């Protein structure tokens, strides 16, 4: 459907970054690859400003927490090239104890609140963000509630254990 096939995007990014990005996958047709916190700014800038790719639209930034992984915190970017009608998903995994990642606000103003929301829920520090503070939760909150160590319910309840929910 898009004017640019995923193969072309893969070629373009692998020739530019080589082994600094992971081998891309395509779950449900959406091109997905990983990179590291050192490279993310460069990757995003390349995706946005390359004259063929033109991923000019930042759809979403969000986080995820896998406590059992060594690099436990993930930051997930969804980009969209409105010129070519192709989407791409970029994932970065960082250390959960001291999560730092460069901010995408120099590239997109729209990243401002998305990163604030991600900080609010996962405690990810976006370096270079102009105003990184809580957005949906109260300022006095001390934890980052979407991390897995914070249970939704009172942990003493027996009727809402995780194994009732398939895990």
């Amino acid at each position: 459907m898009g004017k640019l096939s995923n193969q072309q995007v893969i070629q373009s990014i692998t020739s530019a970054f080589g082994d600094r990005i992971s081998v891309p996958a395509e779950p449900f047709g959406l091109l997905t690859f990983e990179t590291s916190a050192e490279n993310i700014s460069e990757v995003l800038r390349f995706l946005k400003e390359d004259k063929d790719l033109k991923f000019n639209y930042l759809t979403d930034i969000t986080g995820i927490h896998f406590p059992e992984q060594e690099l436990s915190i993930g930051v997930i970017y969804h980009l969209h090239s409105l010129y070519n009608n192709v989407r791409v998903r970029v994932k970065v995994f960082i250390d959960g104890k001291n999560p730092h990642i460069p901010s995408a606000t120099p590239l997109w103003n729209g990243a401002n609140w998305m990163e604030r929301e991600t900080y609010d829920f996962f405690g990810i520090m976006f370096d270079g963000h102009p105003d990184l503070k809580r957005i949906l939760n109260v300022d006095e909150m001390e934890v980052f509630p979407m991390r897995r160590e914070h249970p939704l319910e009172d942990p003493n309840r027996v009727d809402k254990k995780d194994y009732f929910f398939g895990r």
Partner: protein
Amino acid sequence: MTNHPIFTDNDPQKETITLNLGPTHPATHGVFQNVLEMDGERIVSGVSTIGYIHRAFEKIAEHRPFYQITPLTDRLNYCSSPINNMGWHMTVEKLLGIETPKRVDYLRVIVMELARISDHLICNGILGVDTGAYSGFLYLMEEREHIYEIYEEICGARLTTNIGRIGGFERDFNDIAFAKINRFLEKFPPILKEFETLFNRNRIFIERTSGVATVDPETALNYSWSGPILRATGVDYDVRVNEPYSSYQDFDFEIPVGTSGDVYDRFIVRNEEMWQSLSIIRQAMQKLQNEPKGVFHADVPEFYLPPKEQVYNNMEALIYHFKIVMGEIDTPKTEVYHAVEGGNGELGFYLVNDGGRSPYRLHFRRPSFINYQMYAPMSAGMLLSDAIINMSSLNVIAGELDA
């Protein structure tokens, strides 16, 4: 309360006034707080505070089976909850690889377009109220009531609809529902026409809205705007066309775009979208004639709850019922992003699944949240009365803002 302008700003020499617009101000139609620095009637700067109705949906969703997340999506943009419901069902269907029959797609399209009309009705009606014209709003509210009656006939609820199920609908549309849709298709166009006659070339309305809050396409895209307000700037991005879902590719419709991105253009774009939605509903009603009657869900017994009388009398149905309710069915371990064109723009669902019966992580890409972040920066330099109608025309819904 550190970093809060209202509590830290105590300079006796300053020449501006600090004005709290909200959290519960009648002119903002929802729970929005903006702390504005005013120089007379002109806004110098503003800070938006949001989160007053944050309900932790993403956290709750991690502890609920897929089919129990639908009621959470109702409460995002509650002016067009069926679109949210359908968007969520389609996300799960994409994850599970469920193909829905064409008839289901068309029924969904009808419901979604009705929801889009009701969403735009509110926004444009309220914009009229904010510019001092109450009567248009009252005309339109009657029609929204008729749309809610159609929902009521389909699913029993009016506002938070929880309409449909994963794989289709919980029951077929009855004859009264179709009669009500036909009645709506017949009665609504003259009323919309009358509404347009009241506003489109109304001198006062044009002077009040034209040239207010003009946004150029580059800025809009830089702020990740989507939906009617992005199209009013001239960018023809509509998820229904760019990535057709629910068989939108079978329909013939146009994407109205504006030129200057001001409040007037947004109004006109929304009005024109209502006409397009009406045309889509008509086409869908036409297409339904050629589809087999009585098909209202996909044939996926592993995920679609069997009818209750079968559960009591039929072994297989009982087994499936048990498996669905107890979460005994494996789901793929993967991640999926699905977007639909909501009333306010691209409503995305990012679902990471670990094979259980509830998501490992679910993130809602809420258009209001992303659209609204430009509100405070763009208000600087604006008159307070213009900022109010600007907020109306952004159609920010507090439920979608805070999730």
